């Protein structure tokens, strides 16, 4: 993660894409919501009072969910692949030979262009797989709201697990896409080979990064929530519990927002781990892992 932080510092242009992706996701959510509501309204022959003559078509709802999740995944993964490309270049070349401190630097710009052109199909394919799983989970969740059952509950839990695993797998596959420009299938085969040959230690290392990032996200949310609380009291919007609840809501939302932003940093960490493992033999991987363990535990003492 220290190396990932260095990569981010020397490629700050990536932050621009992270911010843009957030606003894009928000804009897409608004657009999709308008489309989904109006489509279901029209297809159901609904009236202004909310009653509908036709039952809701399940297939249409499912496709709408797929559409939503697909675009969201694509937006996020474009940033991830861009990050992987920039970090891969940074890893292979010393900073003196490249310059990527601005958002329009050649390294960042070229990596983004490759993600939006050569690798865009791979991004769409990987994102579609996760989107279908997410839509199925959402669909089952809706079914549970209408009539819950143990079977539906198990199905939703199972789909949630598959969704998590697919997202995790994609995260690594897109690193290969970003660095080497592989197709998604090739990248997937390489990820499986990587895990087979290098073991699951990477997962643990990645998990530690996530903990630190999540903590930072929570701290940002907490501080901004407290700012909101103070502002609410100062402006006189309310007092006591209502303002505190509003502040808590802000805390949670801010945490999610910021976690989305630092995912870029997590992408850097993944890329660096991949580069390290790919480039060096097993012995050096062990040295790196032991070094990380040693550093962390020594710092805890």
């Amino acid at each position, binding site marked *: 993660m220290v*190396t990932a932080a260095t990569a981010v510092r020397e490629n700050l242009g990536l932050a621009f894409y992270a911010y843009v992706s957030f606003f894009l996701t928000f804009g897409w959510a608004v657009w999709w919501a308008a489309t989904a509501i109006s489509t279901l309204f029209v297809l159901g022959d609904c009236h202004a009072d909310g009653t509908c003559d036709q039952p809701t078509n399940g297939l249409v709802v499912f496709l709408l969910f797929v559409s939503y999740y697909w675009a969201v995944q694509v937006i996020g993964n474009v940033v991830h692949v861009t990050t992987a490309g920039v970090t891969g270049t940074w890893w292979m070349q010393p900073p003196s030979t490249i310059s990527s401190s601005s958002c329009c630097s050649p390294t960042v710009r070229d990596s983004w262009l490759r993600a939006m052109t050569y690798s865009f199909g791979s991004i*769409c394919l990987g994102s579609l797989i996760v989107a279908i799983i997410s839509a199925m989970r959402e669909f089952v969740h809706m079914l549970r709201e209408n009539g819950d059952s143990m079977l539906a*509950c198990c199905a939703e839990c199972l789909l949630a697990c598959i969704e998590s695993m697919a997202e995790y797998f994609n995260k690594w596959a897109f690193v290969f896409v970003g660095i080497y420009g592989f197709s998604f299938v*090739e990248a997937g085969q390489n990820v499986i080979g990587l895990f087979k040959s290098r073991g699951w230690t990477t997962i643990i290392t990645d998990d530690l990064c996530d903990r630190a990032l999540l903590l930072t996200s929570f701290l940002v949310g907490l501080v*901004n929530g407290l700012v909101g609380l103070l502002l609410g009291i100062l402006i006189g*919007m309310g007092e006591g519990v209502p303002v505190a609840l509003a502040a808590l809501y802000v805390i949670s939302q801010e945490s999610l927002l910021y976690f989305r932003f630092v995912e870029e940093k997590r992408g850097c960490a993944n890329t660096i781990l991949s580069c390290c493992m790919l480039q060096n033999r097993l012995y050096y991987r062990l040295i790196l892992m032991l*070094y990380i363990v040693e550093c962390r535990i020594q710092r805890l003492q």
Partner: protein
Amino acid sequence: MSTPYYNCNTNHGTQPQPVVVQGYAVDTSKTNGTVAAYEPPGRVPLHLEPYSQLPERQERETDAKFRDVAWALLFYLHLGVVAYLTAVNVPTMANIMGAGYAADGNNNQAQEEDDRRHLQDNDNNNQGWNNYNYNNNNNYDNISVNLPATLSMVALLGLSGLVLSTLALGFLIVAAETLIKVGIVASIIMCLLGGLLSLVAGQLMGAVVGLGMTAMLAWYACGGKTSVGSLFLEMEWNPWLPLYIIFVLDLHKSPVLFFAFIKFGPASPLPPVTWSRPPRRFEKI
């Protein structure tokens, strides 16, 4: 298919294969190829063998060409369909809603008279909502929102969020290691709190999981302090064991835990939701 470095066989060449990033060969004369260049000063360098001693990499340079084109086209097609649906359905819905509201305005007064008569009948019969009186000026209909203040607050929070995010990114860069350590300690505290709260609430399963994870994380964090911990470090895999277990538990989010909580959770399930209050249009006297 391109073969990455780690699939290399036993052929040890004297010259390395070119490093390829996104299909472009990187000038290896300018390549670090090591972690050492980015290590903070004072660390044990993770320097690696020179390239001449590395096994031959059999990677084939990938061509810079479009991959999985059909899926990209499908995505654009999907966006086109969404745009078409928006253009067609949103105006249709807006027209229906507009016409409906216009017609509804004429019917509202008659509906309210019906409600009032219904309430009076119930009062006379001492049945139904006899303790409630119709009052159109109830609390729910009179929620006032200070719009300028709300918008100001949202704008200020957005601005402060942007500033805080930027500062936090700088903090992440400067204190990445500290955050990892604090992250581990915070995980221990959270697990401990979760376990204790579950214990207080009488949820045995939650308490066992929470306290067990606390113990494992604490053991992991303290492992390096002892000679046993150092031995584990030398054995390479043992320090990770607790986190392997945590990962397996975590992998889940988790059918096992979820099912366990349902099965062994609160002894008395929550009471079914019943209609215990009148509609919001009626206010208690």
